[in-house]
């Protein structure tokens, strides 16, 4: 194998090197890449949002099927732009509050069920599997819960110990999650490295 001739591979490889150059230090090439990246991401999203969310609604649903109620969110969305006209800029608060309310309602409506799912999943059955493990699991969950108490006094020694133990459990969980992610991040880097060595430079088969 030898070095690539495809302009697409060159473009991809040079882009990769431009980003890697930041690891040495901030430099003009990285700065250029960074600005191009922002421009491309936005320049991709505008048409994508338009053709995925706006165009079909106007063309098919409003004009095609006569669902004129869509005027409401469109007007609300456009009200965001009143912020550039100082005298009526307060109108921009309408879409904000509607959107925020939708978000708050959505959280309350859709998370109660998974929350209860987590509660019932914490019911430990000592009959299934290793009793020592099950008991430890049970104690770990309860201690972790105690750790987070905000307004309940932990002066009582039992609460204090439980909270301390809960902290340890949480730190183990966080450490484990860290250790578990390292290799995934490496895989992503190795994927790029392989691209450069194989597709571009042709050093490995």
């Amino acid at each position, binding site marked *: 194998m030898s070095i690539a001739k495809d302009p697409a591979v060159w473009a991809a490889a040079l882009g990769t090197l431009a980003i890697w150059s930041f690891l040495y230090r901030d430099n003009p090439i990285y700065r250029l890449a960074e600005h191009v990246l922002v421009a491309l991401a936005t320049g991709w999203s505008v048409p994508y949002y338009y053709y995925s969310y706006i165009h079909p609604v106007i063309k098919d649903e409003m004009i095609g099927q006569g669902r004129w109620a869509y005027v409401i969110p469109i007007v609300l969305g456009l009200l965001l732009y009143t912020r550039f006209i100082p005298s009526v800029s307060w109108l921009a608060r309408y879409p904000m509050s509607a959107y925020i309310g939708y978000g708050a309602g959505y959280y309350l409506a859709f998370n109660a069920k998974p929350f209860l799912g987590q509660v019932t999943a914490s019911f430990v059955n000592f009959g299934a599997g290793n009793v020592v493990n099950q008991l430890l699991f049970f104690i770990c969950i309860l201690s972790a819960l105690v750790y987070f108490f905000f307004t309940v006094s932990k002066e009582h020694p039992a609460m204090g110990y439980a909270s301390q133990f809960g902290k340890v459990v949480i730190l183990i969980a966080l450490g484990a999650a860290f250790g578990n992610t*390292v290799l995934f991040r490496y895989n992503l880097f190795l994927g790029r490295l392989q691209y450069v060595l194989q597709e571009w430079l042709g050093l490995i088969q």
Partner: protein
Amino acid sequence: MQRLQALGRRPIYALVFVVGIVAFLFPLGLPVKIGSDVRTVYNALDALPAGSLVWVGAEYDVSSKPELDPQVVAIFHHLFQKGLKPVVYGMWLRGPTIVQDIVAPIAEQYGKQYGVDWINLGHKPGTTTNLRLMTSNIMEGAGGVDHFGKPLADYSIMRGVNALDKASGFRHIIVVETGSPGSREYLGIVSAEKGIPMSVATLTMSIPENKPYVESGQFTGQIGGLRGAAEYEILVGKPGRGASGTDAQSLAALLVFFLVVIGNIGYLTSPRK
């Protein structure tokens, strides 16, 4: 000794590069032990009669390609070897395109014909709502067309396939996931509802999260990360990217471990701790 805890970032970065290059140029070939979670997926697919439909949810994006592509490759080798008929679909925008690109050459190897032996329904907007629609009417959920915008009615594989359910011939669901929407949505909307067993192909870091679902039997099994891909490659007899990648992983793990150790030696020998 104390200077060991004050290495600059650049020497460390250089070491990361060195480890990557060494792993690619001089593979170690460490043995890989096959875990039970991967084996159950393999056994479940292996036991399906030829001609069964298998729904493949391509729920990932470009950034997860390094970990998930090798898994998809290994799984499709298996599906085609067994004469199963994959139906690809994606709630994630670029998932079906990615899978199309890597599966087409594999299908060719096995002489499988698009539209007869497998099909790609593509990405359709509406995420979970649309997935729910698929369980009652695929024609409507797919907007009547496949990944390439051609009418589904033209493909023989779609004959008699009305919905994502058992009656239409679906025997297993494989969700290749990188986050949400992914396996949880499939579990709630399709698998539990329609009684079709499902397996998950996922990232290394999602393994612990999925573990409880595997233990409870809600997931048949899970293939996790490059390691999982390597295991599946061995089961299918097609060693590839997964197997070579696990060597690099071992070296990377050793590097991080080594750095933490010398950092602590530096710390412990420092008089100002």
